[in-house]
């Protein structure tokens, strides 16, 4: 016997089959972005591309466990999806229109090989970039950009997107439909980009991935499980971008940043879903493998000598991850990194974070000097007031500290944040 069958003792056959189906499903899902991107370019129609992917995925679920996984799963899905749509267009008598623009290979012996050559990396990367860029079209509000990316690129169901972004499912559906229509009109005009355009698209898409990650990462309340999934999806998108643009240090930095931040997720939530501050986290719960990968990516990026906002933020996250305890954190390095970040991104939030690091190295008095000028710009920012309050308390200005905490309480803190702030006020004493 040339091939030994998978052993199936003790009714394990069913379990093996189920595990195999899951493995196939995961392998298919991992190709989705590339397949939809290639087909969207081919048919110049995102809806059609999504349908074609669904068709192809259904066939793959049936075929792959029987026949073994194809050499190039993405190429297989693109070919089968394309053929399924061509069949459908034929039936709808819309084929003549399609064939005019796309010469069809009817009798290719090995269509998979043919297609594998056709979807070489250089073509595919612009397809993927085009699809992602379509999702972050500047006329779309940020939540709509994220919703569209989750729907089209990641294949999230609408109700899950709605829960993730905390928007009602019915409204979410309408918003996605509208966003898709608006974005598709633009996408169809997007040709293969020139070098400069490609860089601009990459910037816009990187920003979207970063915002998606923050949507999951920031303490906005809502379903914890879904928010973790948003972070994981952002990491996948960053991986996809890096796979397509492997020489871009900022894309390495973006992936490193997401991995390093997300490495702490098990340690940063308490049982009620409240956020545990970095200083109080159980560091043994940090994900060592994610930290290792993030660190390597950052090292590789920095070797290229072209730092940017993602690399610097990743370096800040890595400095935290390097510390065995909060007390051993290299705050001087972090203050310097925030200084470097401020030079590229002079926002009051960056200045505030730098001041927090300065408080640790030079004391709260110096830090207060740095943050007082930010008061006007950050008056509606809860973290500004709570940070300022703790600095004021540290230098003995208790009355002002209490007023600042009160101001923070007036800015809609989550339940956990409220409890945290009220605890601080209680500790101020009279």
């Amino acid at each position, binding site marked *: 016997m040339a091939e030994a069958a998978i052993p199936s003792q003790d009714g394990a056959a069913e379990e093996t089959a189920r595990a*195999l189906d899951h*493995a196939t499903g995961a*392998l298919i899902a991992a190709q989705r972005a590339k397949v939809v991107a290639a087909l969207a370019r081919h048919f110049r129609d995102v809806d059609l591309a999504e349908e074609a992917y669904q068709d192809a995925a259904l066939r793959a679920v049936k075929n792959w466990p029987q026949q073994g996984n194809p050499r190039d*799963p993405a190429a297989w899905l693109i070919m089968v999806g394309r053929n399924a749509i061509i069949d459908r267009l034929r039936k709808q008598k819309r084929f003549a229109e399609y064939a005019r623009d796309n010469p069809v290979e009817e009798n290719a012996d090995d269509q998979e090989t043919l297609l594998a050559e056709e979807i070489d990396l250089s073509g595919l990367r612009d397809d993927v970039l085009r699809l992602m860029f379509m999702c972050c079209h500047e006329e779309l509000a940020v939540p709509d950009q994220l919703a569209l990316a989750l729907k089209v690129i990641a294949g999230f169901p609408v109700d899950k997107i709605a829960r993730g972004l905390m928007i009602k499912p019915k409204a979410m559906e309408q918003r996605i439909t509208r966003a898709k229509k608006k974005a598709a009109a633009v996408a169809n005009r997007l040709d293969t980009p020139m070098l400069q355009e490609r860089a601009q698209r990459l910037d816009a898409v990187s920003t979207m991935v970063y915002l998606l990650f923050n949507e999951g990462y920031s303490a906005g309340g809502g379903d914890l499980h879904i928010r973790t999934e948003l972070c994981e999806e952002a990491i996948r998108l960053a991986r996809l971008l890096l*796979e397509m643009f492997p020489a871009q240090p900022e894309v390495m930095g973006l992936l490193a940043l997401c991995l390093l931040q997300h490495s702490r997720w098990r340690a940063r939530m308490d049982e009620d879903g409240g956020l545990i501050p970095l200083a109080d986290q159980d560091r043994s719960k940090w994900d060592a*493998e994610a930290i290792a990968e993030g660190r390597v990516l950052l090292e590789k990026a920095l070797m290229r000598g072209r730092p940017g906002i993602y690399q610097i933020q990743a370096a800040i996250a890595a400095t935290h991850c390097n510390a065995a305890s909060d007390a051993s954190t290299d705050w001087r390095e972090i203050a310097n990194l925030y200084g470097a970040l401020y030079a590229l991104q002079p926002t009051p939030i960056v200045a505030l974070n730098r001041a927090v690091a300065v408080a640790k190295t030079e004391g709260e008095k110096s830090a207060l000097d740095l943050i007082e000028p930010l008061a006007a710009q950050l008056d509606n920012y809860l973290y500004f007031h709570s940070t300022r309050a703790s600095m004021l308390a540290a230098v003995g200005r208790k009355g002002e500290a209490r007023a600042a905490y009160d101001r923070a309480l007036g800015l809609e803190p989550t339940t956990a944040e409220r409890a945290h702030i009220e605890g601080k006020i209680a500790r101020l004493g009279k």
Partner: protein
Amino acid sequence: MYYAILIYGVEGVFDRLPDSEKQAFMKKHGDLQTELGENGKLGPVIRLIGRSGAMTVRKQGESIVVTDGPFAETKESLLGLYTVEADTIEEAIEHAKKLPQGFGSLEIRPVGWAGGNAVDMSDG
């Protein structure tokens, strides 16, 4: 005699399994490591980080050139490996069959020599 079980698969697939399947997957690895460990037949086990972190060193002309990559593709790549002590290759194959299937392929290769700090297999 030591054998290497080289695990090939597509990156990013395990990551997309439902939690229950992830646990079932990890249990198979855990069970094999426990079994081999108890019998004193387990050599080093290695899981590689994805190729996003890979670099390549190659001599080109007179200089040694360091480049990024090789990069992840949609195709299979080396994800990790086991080293196991076994009397025959059939025995090594039996061990490989206990690992999760359907993610790619498992290549079984005899080990010619191995050393280092983790485990000394050189007199296997």
